[in-house]
């Protein structure tokens, strides 16, 4: 293939977003497992990170993933009142507000972050959330922080 054609075919490739999902060990990870066991179809661009509790996902982890080029980040935890550690998801909910407040300061859309409560019995909801998030991020386009290695330029 000629270089021009190659670059053309590369630019024509559809944008497949990279989405990081922090799943809590007790509920959402179980939901992801259930979605798999049930053979429910959901997008493959999800990168699941198993954490013990959604309350341990610090704002820094979310911001850092976005600054390093993830297109979207989800934090998935237990329903309110169901937290294995009593109130971890309440902390996660409070942090989510701050994260969404902060994202525009970095020049990112607030929709790139989503928090959702999914119990271990809700495999369908997990697949649906993954699909919704992928559709949304595909519409928003790639993360502007993905471009790296730029030399400083004169204005």
């Amino acid at each position: 293939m000629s270089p021009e054609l190659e670059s053309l075919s590369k630019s024509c490739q559809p944008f497949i977003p990279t989405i990081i999902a922090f799943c809590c060990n007790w509920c959402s990870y179980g939901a992801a497992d259930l979605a798999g066991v049930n053979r429910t179809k959901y997008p493959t661009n999800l990168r699941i990170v198993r954490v013990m509790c959604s309350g341990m996902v610090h704002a820094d982890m979310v911001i850092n993933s976005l600054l390093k080029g993830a297109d979207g980040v989800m934090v998935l935890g237990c329903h309110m009142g169901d937290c294995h550690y009593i109130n971890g998801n309440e902390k996660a909910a409070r942090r989510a507000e701050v994260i969404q407040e902060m994202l525009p300061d970095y020049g990112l859309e607030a929709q790139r972050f989503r928090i959702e409560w999914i119990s271990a019995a809700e495999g369908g909801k997990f697949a649906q959330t993954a699909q919704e998030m992928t559709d949304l991020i595909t519409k928003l386009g790639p993360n502007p922080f993905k471009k790296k290695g730029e030399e400083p330029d004169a204005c």
Partner: protein
Amino acid sequence: MPVRVLEEWFAGCGGCEVAILDMGEVLLDVLPELEFVYIPVLADSKFFGQDGNGKEMDYPHADVALISGSVRTKENWEAAKQIRARSKVLIALGSCAAFGGISALANLSTNREIYDAYYGASNNNDQAEIPELTTEEMLNKVYALNEVVEVDLILPGCSPTPASIAKAITALLKGEEFKLSEKSVCDTCPLERKSKWGLETKRPLASAQFTPGDYNKTRCLAEQGILCLGPVTRAGCAERLDGEAEVPGCIRAFMPCRGCWGPVHTYTTPMSNMLGALASIGADTSSIPDKKALFNRYIGAHGNLNNCGKG
């Protein structure tokens, strides 16, 4: 043979150079071992000569190069590249060179907005014409030194303490390793801690309640509801030349830490660190004004501050 030292300032205020002089007697001890080959703060040097004979920028070769200030103009950028090529060790002196510093607050605006604000935009005067030939060509934003060239060592602080400069220089002369502290300002702060962070945030310049001179009896400023950047800022400002650890700079005057030593680790982001921690203890973060500039006051380069796609 003395160590050849080159010192240059870019977009900065010159406070870092004063901090070098502030080393006092230590400076006298090390001076015989140093030979300043280029230092505009002390001796003027003209690349183009008195008669305009020189045609291009020509920095002397040096063993150690100290650069203060951020990279703002095209000339700064070219100079940084040449100094890097001609020196063995390059030190970014001060927060401007290390993280962008105060001058990187300009990253919140476009260059056009800066020109407009500087040459006009007053309510009383007409907009002055923006000179095109006499101003230096600016880069699209303010860069820290290590975004442009490789830097061997950073000495943060606004300005760096004479103690840290003295330590770094003596370590270099002896061929020892110099490392910055990896603790936070809170670790070196003597104020009394009783409970969690004050959940009600006071106005930024509200004064704290304090016992003059007695740091151990004064309650932690953050617990009093004053936003202090101590937890997310690198320790070091408490160090004195005589080796005795004292009170961190701003706390000495019962003012909250402003974060001039930059993040505790170079890879952390103070804004998300701090707000995440505040949110998880239930503090009201929406009442903190202008979070973006407040938490990134000294670290605006490295993409921490941007003008949100205005250009």
